[in-house]
């Protein structure tokens, strides 16, 4: 019963990992698969593995994935360019063939009756596992501990970074800034602040340049990568709508009081309106 509820959820989530664009969404779908697996373990008389699955996989491994994703940057999107031609199609075809062979092969096998773990789990699942683990598999267990120590050490060695150059002081940074200005003409001062408007005053609204276009450098790069930046001219359109309604109520229909909303021609008027 539990199996038939969880199996479609797991397959759907696993397929979702293949198709979502962002790595964070893939990690969340993987969490769904792993928690469902934990419940399947609980149903299949494996309470110890149920706990270990939740603690180790969803607790530790997925958190590690999310931490690394934060370090690498959430905006590191997947490129859709194929470097090997036809590789994606070949991958899908090979996967389908492999899956078909596997499913057909498994369906040929007759499994016999399920013995069940009631005898083996007598006196509790955890003591029974401990009995086997520390008698028959004790060398494997010791090797595992050696493996874990090696892994921890390896991670420390790989993630450690020696400082090769001295830390840049404030004077160095100022000199670098002047050099950038001399060589590339980069603006010396701080970046422009985001737009301050009558109805929207937030870091996701870009400031407007004198010609009415949005200043890209005034919003954070991360927000731009996430695609959550508001468009300031669109906000100005709202204001123009209100003005048009007011003008319609007056009945005067004075074209001078109602600047053009579409095209570049109207843009400077928006700017003036917004900066106030």
């Amino acid at each position, binding site marked *: 019963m539990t199996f038939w509820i969880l199996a479609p959820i797991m397959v759907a989530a696993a397929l979702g990992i293949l198709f979502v664009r962002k790595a964070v969404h893939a990690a969340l779908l993987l969490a769904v698969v792993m928690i469902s697996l934990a419940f399947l373990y609980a149903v299949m008389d494996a309470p110890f593995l149920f706990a270990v699955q939740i603690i180790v996989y969803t607790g530790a491994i997925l958190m590690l994935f999310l931490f690394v994703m934060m370090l690498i940057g959430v905006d590191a999107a997947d490129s859709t360019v194929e470097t090997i031609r036809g590789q994606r199609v070949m991958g899908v075809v090979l996967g389908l063939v492999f*899956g078909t062979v596997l499913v057909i092969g498994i369906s040929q096998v007759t499994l016999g009756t399920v013995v069940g*773990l009631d005898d083996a789990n007598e006196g509790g699942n955890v003591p029974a596992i401990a009995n086997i683990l520390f008698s028959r598999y004790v060398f494997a267990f010791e090797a595992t501990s050696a493996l874990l120590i090696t892994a921890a050490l390896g991670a420390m060695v790989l993630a450690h970074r020696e400082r090769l150059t001295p830390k840049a002081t404030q004077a160095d940074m100022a000199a670098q800034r002047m050099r950038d200005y001399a060589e590339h003409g980069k603006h010396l001062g701080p970046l422009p602040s985001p737009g301050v408007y009558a109805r929207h005053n937030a870091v996701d609204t870009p400031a407007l340049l004198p010609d009415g276009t949005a200043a890209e450098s005034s919003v954070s790069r991360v927000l731009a990568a996430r695609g959550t930046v508001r468009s300031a001219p669109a906000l100005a359109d709202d204001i123009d709508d209100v003005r048009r309604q007011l003008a319609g109520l007056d009945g005067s229909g004075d074209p001078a009081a109602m600047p053009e909303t579409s095209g570049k021609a109207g843009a400077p008027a928006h700017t003036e309106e917004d900066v106030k």
Partner: protein
Amino acid sequence: MLSAILFTIGCVGVLTRRNAIVVFMCVELMLNACNLAFVAFARQHGNLDGQITAFFVMVVAAAEVVIGLAIIMTIFRTRRSASVDDASLLKY
């Protein structure tokens, strides 16, 4: 059967995705599918060896994830990219 389907999906994921982290997640998916088969067969045959094996697979997977993510981070630091296509230095 479910285990086979999940394993296949993981396999396709490894073959098609470009982001190293997502490829890694698909490897995890394949390991989990194997674990599911182990636990199911432990119940089928009525002894706990399958569960022990699944436990060892989990330990190895944890160690593997730690090292793999550290390698991905190191590559990202030197290349500023998490795509598997850019890590082709060993080719030449």
